[in-house]
């Protein structure tokens, strides 16, 4: 018999994000207060100075992400947190971070919208904005946790991915998970992998700031470390200097996508339950996956062969895995606190719209297990 002593504690989702960021090595936070994400800023304001880090409350969300990008360029792992309206304001600088390849993490605790909507009520309406919010074709990684422990783990993962691939990573929570308190047992220090950005590895004279290494990602020198180079949101060459050369510009954009596309197995995370013999699968993310989990369990109890597929990486879309799931089942149910944003992508991959059904709510309340169960019963 093994005696395991564990540190169990009640922790809030937003608190888990802050603690996860600190464990991942984040030492800079810039943000602007907005419900339901504010606890993250408050905890960072309290904790960062004690660890030698910096917190700053900026004048708006545009400035917040700008400061985060600036701090990251100076070599400090950096993060911001917001909700829908602030996320909209950040879009241009998300594009900048994608183009200039500056690691950063943007936490969006989704609330009901559009506009001010119902600020204290949950929603999942920013799924497409997270993917396509900034202009131009750009790569982005979006992760979405369904529990407090997952919020902690995925925050660490988000920081790791940002540093490894030099991309903005969006951590998409919803108000339910952000404010949910639940029992968590955190991993011991050292148990989680922490990734730091790869440095230049050559002398300044031989450094080409935007020449990728074998992984497709350019090693990154920090401002002030002796590697003088230019960073711009303009299309640029390997020196980082602006160009209007169509070939160079296209090569750059293709490489930005390629560095994500060739590493999908590393980036895409998912989870599932009862897929082996399932005839119908519920595909859910965020808080909705909790309702889906209950619905699937109850369906199983009443003899329905239901399964659960849970993408933790929303973008890039886990197309191959969803296609594999779709091959084995007659119907995929996609519950979302929006009017079917992610369902569009599932339909695209499944190819047959009749086999994909939605359960949707935009009234600021979490979808209940009963609603999903009712559709499970209907389709079998």
């Amino acid at each position, binding site marked *: 018999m093994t005696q*395991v002593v564990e540190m169990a*504690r009640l922790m809030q989702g937003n608190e888990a994000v802050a603690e996860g960021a600190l464990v991942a090595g984040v030492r800079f936070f810039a943000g602007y207060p907005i419900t339901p994400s504010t606890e993250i800023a408050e905890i960072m304001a309290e904790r960062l100075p004690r660890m030698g880090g910096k917190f700053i409350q900026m004048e708006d969300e545009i400035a917040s992400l700008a400061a985060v990008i600036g701090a990251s360029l100076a070599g400090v792992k950096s993060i911001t947190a917001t909700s829908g309206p602030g996320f909209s304001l950040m879009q241009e600088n998300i594009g900048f971070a994608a183009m200039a390849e500056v690691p950063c993490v943007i936490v969006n605790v989704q609330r009901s919208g559009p506009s001010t909507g119902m600020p204290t009520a949950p929603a999942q309406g920013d799924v497409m904005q997270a993917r396509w919010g900034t202009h131009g074709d750009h790569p982005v990684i979006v992760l979405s946790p369904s529990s407090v422990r997952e919020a902690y783990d995925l925050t660490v993962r988000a920081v790791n991915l940002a540093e490894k691939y030099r991309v903005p990573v969006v951590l998409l929570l919803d108000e339910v998970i952000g404010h949910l308190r639940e029992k968590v047992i955190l991993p011991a220090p050292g148990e989680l992998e922490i990734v730091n950005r790869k440095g230049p590895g050559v002398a300044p004279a031989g450094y080409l700031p935007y020449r990728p290494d074998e992984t497709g990602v350019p090693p990154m020198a920090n401002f002030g470390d002796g590697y003088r180079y230019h960073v711009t949101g303009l299309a640029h060459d390997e020196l980082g200097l602006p160009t209007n050369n169509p070939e160079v510009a296209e090569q750059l954009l293709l490489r930005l996508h390629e560095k994500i596309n060739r590493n999908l197995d590393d980036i895409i995370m998912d989870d599932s339950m009862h897929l082996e013999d399932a005839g119908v699968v519920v595909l859910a993310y965020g808080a909705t996956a909790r309702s889906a989990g209950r619905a699937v369990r109850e369906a199983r109890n009443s003899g329905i062969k239901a399964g659960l597929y849970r993408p933790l990486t929303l973008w890039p879309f886990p197309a191959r895995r969803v296609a594999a799931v779709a091959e084995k089942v007659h119907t995929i149910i996609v519950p979302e606190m929006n009017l079917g944003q992610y369902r569009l992508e599932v339909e695209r991959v499944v190819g047959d719209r009749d086999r994909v059904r939605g359960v949707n709510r935009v009234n600021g309340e979490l979808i209940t297990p009963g609603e999903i169960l009712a559709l499970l019963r209907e389709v079998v």
Partner: protein
Amino acid sequence: MMQELEKYLRRDRFPHMWCPGCGNGIVLGCLLRAIKKLGLEQDKTIIVGGIGCSSRAVGYLDFNTLHTTHGRALAFATGIKLARPELNVIVVTGDGDATAIGGNHFIHAARRNIDLTVVLFNNNIYGMTGGQYSPLTPANKKATTAPHGTIEPVFDVAELARAAGATFVGRSTTYHTNLLTSLIAGGIENKGFSLVEAITACPTNFGRRNKMKGGAEMLLWQRDNAVHVQKTKQMSPGELEGKIVIGLLHKKETPEYTFVYDQIIARAREESGPGTLTPLKGGESRGRTE
């Protein structure tokens, strides 16, 4: 002198993109002379630009350079300075970039008195996009978006910075280059938020539409219409009408943001240590048998 400044330039980036007669090169020359005068290390100096003709200067400079999004240079610069206060951070911006789209960042950076030096190239117009009016386009002047003349009053950007909390504010023109150089040097030396407004000519998009002829004539206009701040005391408001007041306009001693921040960090560390997760007090560890 020019040769001594060449080490600060990315020479392969020339010729530059500015029009004949543009004053931006003169402002840039003054900035580099100020950097040289102070002996700033290139590796430890960051130059941040926004969007616009002036902000393109950063691409020509051999420092750590960052060309940001429109209006946001000061917010990016704030992140850099906070992350590494030991670096010299200089912001190059224009009238539209700093006072329209970036107006809010401008007043808040000044309010914080964070150690950034802003060189604001004021050419009274949006040059890069072809001559639209900015918050610093004087009244009754023509622009592509004010074909009948502007009706909006201008900001006095120096007063704006002073009122917001800047601790060093100066103004010069591209005619008064020695003054401009010494003001920029003074701004960099000031531990706090510094604004140096550089009046510069845009013959292509401002001068041409407003009967000011070419770049040379606009330089002479600067000579004839600038009044040193020390001389203004003997002048009546009527005499000062339409004049550009140049010189060191404001200086005060206020604790600088990153300096105060470091004190906060020292205090927080001393009082409470790095801190860990606050565990449930008493009986938080539960034995579990598997």
